[in-house]
């Protein structure tokens, strides 16, 4: 007989080891899936996880990995607050879009004026936009007990519609010969988030990601709010008895995650993306949920898992070119990583016992 027995304390070893096991299992099963579709499995796995960092064109791909990892890490770190407190903001994609729109709108309002104040204003607008968009589920949850999962998600679809509307309407480039899409911010020096060192992928977003990770790491450990967030998730009743207002935690968690997603959005639109178009969003907000989980909702873990998941974006493009595997199939990899991680999570709080219960 195999049965489960609850551990007295969560296993630290298992917490650290299981994400690695999950990734390896996802690679194996992903390889099998490619094989069944008649694609060379080992080549595919190598192209996704090896080629971007160590392959022939790594000098180009490495910078791309940084560019993709930055928004993932920023959004995931923000989300980790809520997930720790049991507040499920799954609409980061929408907050990311709104942040980008707000930031771009500020820049376009000043065009063609050049001033050093424009970029900080854009960042502020992006942060506020994402924050405000996340406050909608927050306020509804606190005032009416509405489910934040459904509301934040519905707002993603609303945000995508707004994105299409503004890229064809109010933010459209007047000199764009009628094509949808805004002016390219990369060609507007005061608003551009360019690479700090050419061809490294190192732009302000990467710096911001690192900063946010470090700040979050210490915040969670030392600040009272970090403690309140953690205790709300682990023991809601105890949290209430110790005087933590659940409403406040909802606002803090949704606010932080929304603002981070908005920041990621504005850094993206001013940098790698360059302009607001209807296809600006690329699913970072959803992938960031996997990043947060795979990183064990821990800032340093998220740094690593963000880099890993960035590989699936770059690797996805490589296998699409080389093996004609659609790049969206990388979502299957992300899903599998999450599955295996959740499956192996069991070993953190339970241990497997063989034999009959006495």
């Amino acid at each position, binding site marked *: 007989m195999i049965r*489960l*027995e*609850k551990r007295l304390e969560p296993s630290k070893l298992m917490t650290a080891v299981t994400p690695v096991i999950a990734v390896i299992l996802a690679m194996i099963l992903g390889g099998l*899936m490619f094989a069944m*579709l008649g694609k060379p499995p080992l080549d595919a796995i190598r192209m996704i996880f090896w080629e971007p960092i160590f392959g022939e064109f790594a000098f180009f791909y490495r910078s791309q990995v940084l560019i993709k990892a930055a928004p993932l890490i920023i959004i995931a770190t923000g989300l980790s607050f809520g997930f720790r407190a049991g507040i*499920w903001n*799954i609409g980061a994609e929408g907050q990311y879009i709104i942040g980008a729109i707000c930031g771009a709108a500020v820049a376009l309002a000043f065009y063609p004026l050049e001033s050093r104040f424009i970029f900080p204003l854009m960042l502020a607008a992006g942060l506020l936009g994402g924050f405000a968009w996340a406050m909608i589920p927050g306020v*509804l949850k606190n005032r*009416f*007990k*509405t*489910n934040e*999962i*459904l*509301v934040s*998600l*519905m*707002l993603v*679809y*609303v945000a995508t*519609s*707004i994105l*299409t*509307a503004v890229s*064809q*309407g109010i933010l459209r480039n007047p000199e764009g010969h009628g094509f949808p899409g805004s002016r390219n911010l990369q060609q507007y020096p005061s608003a551009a988030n360019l690479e700090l060192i050419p061809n490294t992928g190192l732009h302000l977003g990467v710096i911001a990601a690192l900063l946010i990770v470090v700040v979050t790491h210490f915040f969670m450990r030392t600040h009272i709010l970090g403690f309140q967030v953690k205790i709300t998730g682990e023991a809601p009743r105890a949290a209430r008895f110790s005087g933590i207002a659940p409403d406040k935690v909802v606002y803090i968690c949704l606010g932080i995650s929304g603002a981070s997603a908005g920041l990621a959005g504005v850094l993206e639109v001013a940098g790698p993306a360059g302009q607001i178009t209807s296809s600006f969003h690329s699913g970072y907000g*959803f992938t960031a*949920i*996997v990043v947060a*989980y795979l990183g064990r909702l821990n800032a340093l873990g998220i740094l690593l898992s963000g880099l890993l998941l960035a590989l699936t974006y770059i690797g996805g493009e490589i296998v699409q070119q080389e093996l*004609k*595997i*659609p790049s*969206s*199939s*990388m*979502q*299957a*990899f*992300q*899903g*599998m990583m*999450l*599955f295996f991680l*959740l*499956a192996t*999570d*069991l070993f953190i709080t*339970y241990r497997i016992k063989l034999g009959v219960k006495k």
Partner: protein
Amino acid sequence: MIEIMNINPILLVASLMVSATPILLAAIGEMVVEKSGVLNLGVEGMMIIGAVVGFAVAILTSNPLIGFIAAAFAAALLSLVFGVLTQVLLANQVASGLGLTLFGLGLSAMIGKNYEGKQAPSLGKFEIPFLSDIPIFGKTFFSHDLIVYFALLLVLATYLFLMRSRHGLVLRSVGENHDAAHALGYNVVRVRLLAIMFGGACSGLGGAYVSLVRVPQWTEGMTAGAGWIALAIVVFSNWKPWRVLVGAYLFGGVSVLQLNLQAAGSKIPVEYLSMAPYLITILVLVFMSVRGKQASPASLGKVFHKSG
């Protein structure tokens, strides 16, 4: 609002029934899952797998009905992944459901690559004898394809099962208080696994209806959020089968009206119309919460382990 006058109400209702069918199927399945105390956020993933498998099998066998059956089986199989994770391995249901959606979207893109641009065999209309000859009403309500009627029958069957049968009572008790149900000797995990698979099969049928009847073609990510709407409808319905029907037709109605308004040359920009269903979902969610009449199953989303 002159545009509304140009819309033919008979065609509107008829196309409403078609456009509501996928979300009705998925929502009725998810309602049963939630009644058993499980929150499966993977509806979108199961629908898209149903869409691609149904489409592929219908082309391979040139029989759309076999396509539907295969879609139901495939999605039920996929839902079992979620079932094992949450019921046997005691994983978090929100994360598992999201994983299921991501996995389904990715896998469907891989499977569907070879079927892009192909044409599925048509399901054909099933005109109900006599009833379909009634003027106006006949064309509106009684000359659709089989699946539209099947979805309606499924609502009735679900109502009878949940509210009028012993097994339905057991399922509801598991959802309300799994510890008490366990103490009474019911196998909580088995009941929930069966409910999850039923929900999967329904989502699969809903997805196949999108790729085989509504569009009818395969394109990546073609369910476009229908699964999430289905989840919202379950909340809107207050976990009552008949209200799922009302909710699904309401949502079908909004999306059809929006298309019709676009076609009728409405001055409202298309993008603002297309966000209407989502905004209405939010408003309904708020409205239901304000009235304080939410009858969500008491054990919804909670992990059950025999040792407690």
